[in-house]
């Protein structure tokens, strides 16, 4: 089955609630989970996710990450961290080691290529040495950057459908996906950022070669601690996935 990826901000809306949601994640359809590390200014997240960061920051403890990972890994789901460059920079390789020790499979750094492209030349190989760097591309990523960064990494690629998530910017899925699929053939590319309906998931899967990452769409369930809603949501997605087979 094609990969489905769920995104959660660590400790949103609280340590306990998130843990319960993670336990509910269905390994039959979810292949990876991304855990976002809360930030003061998550620049490239849209307002929905941004709001989760400011709430999560109050609760966040680094140790929780290991616990979240444990829950998922037990079910056979791989876990990836999503962190802005600032934290990596401050905590240094330490942080990467911690993630690796905690059984995270890799890390996504959404602002690295945009705002720290010089640093990226050094950091990507460093990370790749004993961990996975998941390239985060979007329609604004230049061809040359996509080709170069892809060639320096081996894991899957996260492709944001737009430069910021959570905002209702119109785009033409077909157009937006064509370029990346043409540029990086034979590689797992999962699309995310700005998926707003179950319908769209269907559409994206129809484009052929990729799975889907979902974030903003689940925030309301977490906020409301609506486990029932989350379950139904997973089931609807499963329906779409099965149909797409």
């Amino acid at each position, binding site marked *: 089955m094609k990969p489905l990826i769920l995104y959660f901000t660590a400790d949103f809306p609280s340590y306990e609630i998130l843990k319960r949601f993670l336990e509910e994640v269905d390994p039959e359809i979810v292949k990876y989970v991304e855990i976002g590390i809360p930030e003061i200014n998550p620049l*490239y997240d849209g*307002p929905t996710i941004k709001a989760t960061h400011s709430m999560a920051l109050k609760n966040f403890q680094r140790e929780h990450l290991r616990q979240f990972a444990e829950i998922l890994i037990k079910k056979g789901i791989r876990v990836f961290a999503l962190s802005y460059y600032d934290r990596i920079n401050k905590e240094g390789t330490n942080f990467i080691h911690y993630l690796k020790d905690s059984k995270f499979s890799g890390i996504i750094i959404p602002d690295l*290529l945009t705002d720290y492209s010089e640093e990226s030349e050094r950091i990507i190989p460093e990370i790749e040495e004993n961990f996975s760097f998941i390239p985060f591309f*979007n*329609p604004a990523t*230049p061809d040359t*950057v996509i080709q170069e960064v892809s060639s320096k990494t081996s894991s899957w690629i996260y492709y944001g459908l737009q430069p910021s998530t959570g*905002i209702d910017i*119109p785009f033409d899925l077909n157009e*937006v996906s064509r370029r990346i699929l043409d540029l990086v053939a034979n590689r797992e590319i999962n699309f995310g950022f700005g998926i707003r309906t179950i319908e769209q998931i269907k559409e994206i899967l129809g484009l052929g070669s990729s799975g889907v990452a979902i974030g903003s769409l689940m925030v309301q369930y977490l906020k409301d601690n609506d486990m029932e809603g989350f379950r139904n949501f997973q089931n609807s997605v499963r329906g779409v996935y099965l149909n797409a087979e």
Partner: protein
Amino acid sequence: MLSTQDSSIIPNEWYNIVPDLPKQLPPPVDRDEKKSSIQLLNQILPKAILKQEFTFQKYTKIPEEVQEIYAQIGRPTPLFRAKGLEKALDYNGKILLKYEGATITGSHKINTAIPQAFYTREEGSTGVVTETGAGQWGTATTVAASLAGITSKIFMVKISFNQKPLRKQIIELYGGEIVPSPSRETKFGTEILSRNPDHPGTLGIAISEAVEYALEHDLKYMLGSVFNSVLTHQSVIGLETEKQLEILGEEPDVLIGCVGGGSNFGGFVFPLMRKFKETKIYASTASEVPKFSKGEYKYDFVDTAKILPSIKMYSLGSDYVPEKIYAGGLRYHGAAPSLSMLVNSGRINSSDMPEDKVIDALKLFARTQGIVAAPESGHAIATAIDYVKNNTDQKETILVNVSGHGLMDMSIFQR
């Protein structure tokens, strides 16, 4: 065929440099946690423009009707050799000019106004709103709206409005509605007037009023420069130039344009950078607004009113107020993100031109080429003249974009 100008030179796709940049373009961001300015754009821009703004296709098909209107407003604009200027400068190389002043509204602004008005109508809106400082953008907006068959409303900074009665006349003649800003037509304007009935207005206030008016009346707001979609529309300049160079059998060694928000510059230079990878490139700015030499490359607000998103660009600060106003279109505090990135990376050089050199350049240009260029374009010409003077023994081909004519701005020669 609408015209016997060789319309095969008009491109049928716009070019967006973003996928061809050396680095990834930092996207527009919100800096106010309470309200999303990107969400706001979503409400006031046509979907097609938003799409172009946020999901970058290297090539976007130009709708056929837009191509037809391009032909109607004077595209392709001429590319010609400036023999008179060459002779006056005793230059053994060549100076080529792309002349956007040949469009019916007298500058490149119409190139983006047309598709924005077109998409607005296609998506079922009945009209557009925008702000204008000196008036060029307001005029282009109104013409584009009239040609698309929709209404236009222009908030013009009151002090300019009073100084330039011609602009009111021409906008009304073209079927637009023009209001001095601050006005009583918006809550924002009304509030300002209640505090100071004689407020002279600012571009920031005019933007706020235009945006509020668009929201309240379900109209679309038009973007004049800086935004990537605008630079994309302006790529018609460079794409035409590319074909015209082929016809002329010329290859440029140097590219020069002037920079306000960066739209005529980007539209001209970016398509040419694809093929001519070794050219020297100069972005000419006003010494009074030295955004590249004195500004900082950082996230800053697009507009003084801080209503629109923040973008990463060279900026003198969104509160920067230049002293002089002789080249109104170059007073903007920042420059388009893609252009800023290329200046930052060193690919594009910047050149600050002082007023006296620009006036001299405009005079020489008028006498040797017969064209009264816009004061903004005068900067590009002055930079070209400087380049020639510093490189007399070179026999290079210098290609300059002359973004507009200056027939409505001749008061600058009075001093």
